[in-house]
């Protein structure tokens, strides 16, 4: 077990890295999945992610409890989500542009309020040690999986079940597929979309807390580099299915883990290019899954062309 070779070490660190890096993608994409199923796109998830990262870190530092940080990160995300939802409720307000504005505002707020928290060390989130059976340090560290990942996996299945079998899931999909039908049935479209945006933003806030409280595990201004946006694109590829969001997040995680893994193999010179792999992957996937003739399969019909 101790002699698995360089390639084996890289593969294992890639798997471990994929799980580690995928967690924020998973949370944001699940959140965006909820929002988009209601027929609205929230591009502001990137700003919400960054604000969540800052609030999660700050609260964990102040209270000493990282889970309190996670909850508060979610709440802070919800507040920004509520802002997005209220703005989009106004007639003739462009939701894509509001998304860009929320990115700007959320990022600015996080940097403004978060300045004092760049130095101190907040308590981190715990990890589950699934590699106890191995005496190889590489395997043990790869299988030390953060608790939040399991929360995300549980939420994936809960959402999948809820979308198809629970009352709120059906209401959500009705609103997303035909606002007129939903109105005829007596549901308030704006209210459902408001709730869907706020809940979706809660998820993103939690995803942000993962960034600052587990991996990379500190609050800096360069913490997020577009993960929130990539997760929005990821939902299109996952065809608005929570389970596919999970697989796609793992794929994105693997792409993101490629840079550090290659660096350990001595390919450090092309670090910047390799670290751009997730963006290239997202773009490639978007091109492959878009079409001008037909709508993407499974797309909520109320959703503007994405």
């Amino acid at each position, binding site marked *: 077990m101790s002699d698995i070779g360089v390639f084996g070490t890289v593969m294992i660190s890639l798997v471990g890295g994929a799980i580690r890096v995928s967690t924020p993608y998973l949370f944001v994409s699940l959140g965006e999945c909820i929002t988009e199923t209601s027929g609205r796109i929230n591009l502001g998830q990137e700003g919400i992610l960054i604000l969540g990262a800052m609030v999660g870190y700050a609260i964990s530092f102040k209270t000493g409890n990282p889970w309190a940080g996670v909850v508060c990160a979610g709440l802070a995300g919800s507040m920004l989500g509520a802002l997005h939802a209220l703005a989009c409720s106004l007639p003739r307000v462009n939701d894509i542009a509001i998304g860009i504005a929320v990115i700007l505002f959320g990022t600015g707020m996080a940097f403004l309020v978060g300045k004092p928290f760049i130095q101190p060390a907040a308590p981190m989130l715990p990890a589950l040690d699934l590699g106890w059976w191995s005496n190889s340090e590489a395997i043990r560290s790869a299988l030390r999986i953060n608790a939040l990942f399991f929360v995300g996996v549980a939420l994936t299945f809960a959402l999948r079940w809820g979308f198809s079998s629970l009352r709120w899931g059906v209401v959500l999909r009705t609103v997303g597929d035909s606002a007129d039908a939903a109105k005829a049935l007596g549901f308030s479209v704006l209210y459902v979309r408001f709730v869907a945006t706020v809940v979706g933003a809660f998820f993103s806030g939690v995803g942000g807390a993962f960034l600052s409280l587990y991996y990379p595990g500190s609050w800096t201004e360069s913490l997020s580099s577009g993960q929130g946006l990539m997760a929005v694109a990821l939902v299109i590829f996952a065809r608005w299915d929570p389970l596919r969001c999970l697989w796609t997040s793992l794929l994105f995680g693997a792409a993101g883990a490629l840079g550090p893994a290659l660096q350990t193999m001595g390919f450090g010179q*092309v670090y910047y290019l390799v670290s*751009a792999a997730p963006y290239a992957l997202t773009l490639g996937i*978007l091109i492959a899954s878009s079409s001008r003739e037909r709508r993407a399969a499974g797309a909520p019909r109320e959703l503007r062309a994405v």
Partner: protein
Amino acid sequence: MNAQPFGFRSVRTAEAAALPIGALIASATAFGLIVAALGDDPFEVYRMIFVGGFGSWFSWENTLQRVAPLLLTALCAALPAQLGLAVIGGEGAFALGGLAAVEAAILASRAPAWLDIAAMLTAGMAAGALIVGAAGFLRAWRGVSETISSLLLNYLAIAVFNQLVEGPLRDSSDLNRASTFPVPEQAMIGTIGDSGLHWGLAVGLAACVGAWVVIFRTTTGFSMRIAGGNAQAARTVGIPVDRLIVGACTIGGAAAGLAGAIETAAVYERANNSLIAGYGFSGILISFIARHNPLLIIPAAILFGGIGASGGLIQRRLGLPDAAVTVLQGCTFLMVLMAETFRGRSLRDLVLGEARTS
């Protein structure tokens, strides 16, 4: 609005002025509340913004120096916006434009100065056009969301930029930070007369006027605006919507690339990561405030150039982080977008809820 035989136009004009001004007041108020919540005096911040941005000739120079690139990056958003596209690739186009310009100027350094400058500016425009034009092409070809693709292209462009500046194009004699070799002396862009302003400002102003003429006084511009209103109808009457999309994005990208080239040749001398300072993103905001009208971009850019120029003063005097300016920009963007909902509706409509929300 039916009982207005001759007052219609003036009402529209008044509205066109009142909405952005109202939005600016609302955002200043919201920002003031945030500043107050953080324990600072909002009125002191307002005063600092005024002093730092517009209080003296020195601060005007500072402001106008920022206006030069902002005019061009705003056009990068405004041209595609005529077709209803929200492109945000200006940041990547700006950075790569700067890098391509430096390298072209170095390659052509044996040529006469005018040729060197021409090569430099062309290279900058080409690099920017490539980035943003790609987003337009993907939109026309596959229907890919230009917003998301241009954002991703930003990240890709910046990754390529960093890779090149830290790797093969790095001037290893500069130990402080990763930079390229400097622009040759003969290709540097000088100042206008003995003011502290470089020629980029004139280029930006000319580009805005030119864009206005194209959009509002030519058939192409008319076609663009029709396609922006209803692409389906435009296709029906034979307007080449796809070609317009690719064209507007390409020219917009060229404008942002040109901004990067001029900024490098007039201010930074070398391409390094100080080129990634948010000019591309601010341009989007300015374009929206100006409602994508190239002439209105000029005052909007002056306003934002001033706010940007005051960032340093706010930081030094009040100890507020740089991000305060980002928050103010975010507030302004939100308010300006939300103000759209009031357009064309009287107070009575709003109170009675005549225009139903869906």
